[in-house]
């Protein structure tokens, strides 16, 4: 229908700039400088020449028209040049002619293409790209409230989810260059193969924006790895749930929060990325609490609806967590940790690192249970006011961890079951020889820098069992944009 070589013009009658240049276009068409004039809303405009009727907007969609009038130079069926709106200079250059449009202003901006009209854009998107979606379509009743319908089908985690229409899922998929049919992970407990598309569906429901999708994909991959053991994390009676810590340029690019209230509410990326992972495990893997569900947590914690924050790298005295775990500097990454909750603590008086580190060791000692060592892994979130103490003293990450490790060598005898009138503790077989036991296994304590500038508080995030029967923290670089 269109020439493969030559110039094509796309216009709309309902556009003052198109009306302005209509006589010029008629002249150019008659002279053969323009091979075809396409109109989005009236096959009789401009009058006097044969007009290509694009009232379906399929041509405009294929050509990627965003403005009318648009002038396109095609070569071999592919776009070689484009001018949007009216500009004598641009049109002359594209057409290879001079002295056109006498009496017209030098330039005038165009109007929005009809393909971008809110009412029509979604329909076009679905018509042109909907065929790539393989998920089953579910038709909600005409009189059903779509949000209630999502609750009724068991797809919600207790909060409303965004209905994943075809248009919303297609827009979400624009956030990645990965093939929607690509299998991302095998999701427990059902051990179901999960495609990029399925992740996108759940990301829409969580409230994600398309630019968050690469982070969600990396998180799903990391969480479903054997090392992280999402099945165990889900099934345990302990409180643990996935925590996603984000490093690298992607955090700023998508507007994540790494500073004030970083572990709390108020930031869309923080709130929805973690939630998307939870919904994937819930809906794709079938992992959920409640009657008959695999999630057997006695108490759980508020972050199990979804937990994700970014490390504050700019303000940090240390290299990013991801770099300390082997990712190249400047590369974006997620670290998955089986977090059981947030335990904040105070230290408003320590001005030396030696004092502050003793506070931290005292708090860490009590993680999970004061008489268990080795115990669960931990993430220590150090706030800026506390980090300042270490920075001023020149303590790098290695030094801080070494000092904590030293202080967390615990007197074995005191840990023994029954000691202190507490039945819990370490078996006598392990403490009989005396000596010390470490609170954490080597590599079991992760340090992250985050939080607002005011507040001499930091936070401990206890984990779960580690090793072959538990969960290992997993760091994974993020592919795709950013």
């Amino acid at each position, binding site marked *: 229908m269109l020439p493969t070589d030559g110039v094509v013009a796309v216009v709309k009658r309902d556009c003052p700039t198109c009306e302005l240049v209509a006589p010029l276009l008629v002249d150019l068409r008659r002279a053969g400088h323009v091979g075809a004039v396409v109109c989005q809303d009236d096959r009789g405009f401009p009058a006097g020449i044969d007009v290509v009727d694009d009232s379906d907007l399929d041509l405009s969609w294929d050509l990627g028209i965003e403005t009318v009038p648009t002038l396109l130079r095609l070569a071999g069926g592919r776009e070689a040049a484009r001018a949007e709106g009216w500009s004598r200079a641009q049109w002359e250059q594209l057409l290879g002619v001079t002295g056109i449009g006498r009496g017209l202003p030098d330039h005038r901006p165009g109007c929005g293409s009809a393909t971008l009209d809110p009412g029509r854009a979604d329909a076009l998107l679905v018509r042109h790209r909907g065929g790539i979606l393989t*998920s*089953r379509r579910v038709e909600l009743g005409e009189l059903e409230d779509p949000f209630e319908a999502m609750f009724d089908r068991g797809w919600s985690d207790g909060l409303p989810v965004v209905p994943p229409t075809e248009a919303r899922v297609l827009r979400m998929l624009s956030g990645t260059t990965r093939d929607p049919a690509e299998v991302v992970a095998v999701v427990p407990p*059902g051990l*179901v193969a999960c495609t990029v598309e399925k992740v996108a569906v*759940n990301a829409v429901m969580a409230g994600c924006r398309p630019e968050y999708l690469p982070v969600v994909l990396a998180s799903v991959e990391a969480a479903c790895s054997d090392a992280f053991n999402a099945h165990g994390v889900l099934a345990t009676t302990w409180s643990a749930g996935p925590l996603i810590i984000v490093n690298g340029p992607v955090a700023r690019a998508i507007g994540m929060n790494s500073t004030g209230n970083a572990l709390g509410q108020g930031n869309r990326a923080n709130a929805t990325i973690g939630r998307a992972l939870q919904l994937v495990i819930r809906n794709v893997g079938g992992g959920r609490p409640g009657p008959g569900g695999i999630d057997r947590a006695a108490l759980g914690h508020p972050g199990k609806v979804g937990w994700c924050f970014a490390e504050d790298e700019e303000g940090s005295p240390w290299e990013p967590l991801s770099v300390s775990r082997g990712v190249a500097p400047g590369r974006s990454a997620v670290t998955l940790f089986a977090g059981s909750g947030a335990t904040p603590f105070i230290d408003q008086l320590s001005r030396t690192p030696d004092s502050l580190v003793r506070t931290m060791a005292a708090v860490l000692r009590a993680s999970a249970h004061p008489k268990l060592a080795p115990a669960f892994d931990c993430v220590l979130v150090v706030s800026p006011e506390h980090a300042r103490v270490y920075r001023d003293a020149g303590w790098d990450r290695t030094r801080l961890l070494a000092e904590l490790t030293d202080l967390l060598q615990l007197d074995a005898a005191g840990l023994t079951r029954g000691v202190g009138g507490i039945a819990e503790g370490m078996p006598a077989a392990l403490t009989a020889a005396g000596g010390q036991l470490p609170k954490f296994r080597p590599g079991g304590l992760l340090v992250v820098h985050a939080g607002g500038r005011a507040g001499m508080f930091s936070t401990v995030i206890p984990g779960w069992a580690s090793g072959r029967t*538990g969960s290992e923290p997993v760091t994974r670089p993020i592919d795709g944009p950013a």
Partner: protein
Amino acid sequence: MANPPSLPTVVLDPSGEREAVARARAARPPALRGRTVGLLDISKARGDVFLDRLAELLGAEGAVVRRYRKPTFTKPAPVDLRQEIAVQCEVVIEALAD
């Protein structure tokens, strides 16, 4: 972005789309004499004690007992172990809980 109220909303299924298949169970053997019964220990504490006793009782019934153990209760049984059990046994008993 809301649809006009007269049109139904079409959404994509977020689930793994595994139908809850109602599979017919294998016929229950009338007796265990001569049958191969597998006992799978999931490595919870004292599961072996329970299964030892069960093995005794089953042996007394004339069943041929095979014992299996998966490495940890926190992860699904390895695929090759599941294969082994499926191939070698006619009946399986799995010990859970502490």
